[in-house]
């Protein structure tokens, strides 16, 4: 099976004054198309750092990262943005929706940046919002939605343009258990029905329970 993500000896060192903090130490990871991978581990183990580096949101200190056949460590800021636009969807712990846009506009946003025609993007956005259970709430702005609804909008935004990879950083952390269960079902559905590849960092055992592969991180290394 074709690898969507390939990390080799990825290292990330942060400087805090004179002290060097090793966030990732020679991490190796391969994620195949259609995979559903959970990264777990204690706080500070490097889960978010690894997701950020796979997503091109941060640069590694050393190592090689290939995402959807793009060698991230050799790309400029603009090239990384272009790569994210076409190949990666993000779901964040804090939803991160744009407050001045409606649910529909938040979902349409990525397609708008891709240059998809207005009619087509509205149709697709409505379709995806329906799939995540938000039919009828398209014209509400984020402050008018509950936390669970906002996270569903974020998932819809992440998958609407059919990315090769969705990176989710603790997506259930701010949700109550019922909403979290619904969200996990939704992501699993997207994975099995649409073949979307997920890499999720989480502490949540319910998410881990649904994963095809569970990986643990300790002190910046993938240990299992």
């Amino acid at each position, binding site marked *: 099976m074709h690898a969507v993500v390939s990390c080799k000896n990825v290292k990330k060192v942060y400087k805090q004054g004179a002290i060097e903090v090793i966030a990732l130490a020679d991490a190796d990871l391969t994620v195949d198309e259609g995979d559903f991978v959970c990264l777990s581990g204690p706080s500070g183990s490097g889960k978010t750092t690894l997701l950020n580096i796979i997503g091109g949101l941060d640069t590694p200190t050393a190592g090689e990262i290939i995402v959807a056949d793009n060698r991230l460590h050799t790309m400029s800021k*603009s090239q990384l*943005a272009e790569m994210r*636009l076409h190949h990666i969807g993000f779901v*964040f712990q*804090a939803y991160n929706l*744009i407050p*001045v846009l409606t649910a529909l506009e938040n979902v349409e*946003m990525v397609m*708008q940046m*891709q240059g998809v025609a207005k009619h087509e993007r509205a149709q697709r956005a409505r379709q995806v919002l329906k799939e995540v259970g938000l039919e009828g709430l398209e014209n509400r702005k984020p402050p008018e939605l509950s936390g669970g609804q906002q996270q569903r909008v974020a998932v819809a935004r992440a998958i609407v343009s059919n990315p090769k990879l969705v990176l989710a950083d603790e997506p259930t952390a701010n949700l109550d258990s019922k909403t979290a269960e619904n969200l996990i079902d939704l992501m699993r559905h997207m994975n099995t029905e649409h073949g979307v590849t997920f890499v999720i960092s989480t502490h949540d055992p319910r998410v881990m329970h649904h994963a095809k592969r569970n990986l643990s991180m300790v002190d910046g290394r993938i240990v299992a």
Partner: protein
Amino acid sequence: MNKGYTLVAALAWRNLWRNPRRTTVILFAIVLGAWAMIVMAAYARGMSKQVFDNAIDNLTGHIQIHAPGYLEDPVIDYAFDSAQTTLKTALSDPEIAQFSPRVRVPAVVASERESQGVTLLGIDPVTEAKMSFLRKSIVAGNFFVSARDPGVIIGKKLAERLETALGRRVVIMTQDAHSKIADRGFRVVGIFDAMMDAQETGFAFISLGAARQMLNLENRVSEIAIKLHDPAHTDATLERLKLQLPALDVRAWYKLDMLAKLFQDTWEGSTFVWHLIVFLAMGFGIVNTILMAVFERTREFGLFQALGLKPGFILLQVWLEALLLLIIGLAIGNLVAWLSVLATGDGIDVSAFGQGLEMAKLSKVIPFVLTARDLLIANAVVLILGLLTCLYPAWRAARLVPAHAITRI
């Protein structure tokens, strides 16, 4: 290609109204700044125009012709023949709207009680009526009715000093063309009230015919004042006249009244300084507002980058927000400034400072003159400098590292 332009434009507009109170405050600052720039420019332009108009109306005209040496020593000896053919040909220049021959000599005017040194002007009533302030300033009696009118016209202030009045006789004494004392009695036929006191006390007007007869001048005059159809063509016309009249001294108004030129340049120069001062005060407000907006939305800028918006579009979004703010502020500022200028009507009365203003070649009422050029400059200063100052916050937003920005609280 990333097609984020419409998204960026929509976001810029909506974000502008995200914090209405802050946007309103900075809009108010821009409106106030634009208003101050435009109104001050209109005031300075009004003063500049008035200095120019007063200089031209105050017997100067746009161009004057004299015999060489007259301007250094303005006496009767430097009179020249106004009937010469070359002069007549030169004065038929199509740019010349009006010319007026004058006799102009120092003299003394005496009433029964007082005497006063003046500049005596012998004028042609037909041509002078269209040339200088005199005809439109007559408040008692009348203007000369013929080229040989035997009367004298004096200013209101001079009449007060001489303790004379309309219909009374005064004696004018000067030196004639043969260097002999010439004196003659004139009846006061008109009294004028000028914008400036110096005009009222400094001149006495008699008809050109009477002056020539009294001074034995025959066809000679001291000067010819010229008014042009378009003052902008002064220099070109001046050069043509100089070429045609090499034996005469031809000068433009700004060489005859250099103080007026100096004041005119000063008023216009002050506008530029004023624009800079106003913009400095306003510029800090604009930068502060945009910087605050950038700091508040750091997470969003990180998110946009995470979703694939290139840094250039982030810069464009912030910049567009500033542009919209400036355009709205300027539109309102221009409207308010235009209404303010309209409300001043003929100008503002500054007679409380009359004496000082007269020295600056100004009248008691200063008009506001709004020109397209001044409007354009004020708007361009705000728009261009405003956008330049907003480059800094926009650049800051664009160079955020997405992973760091997205976790910023």
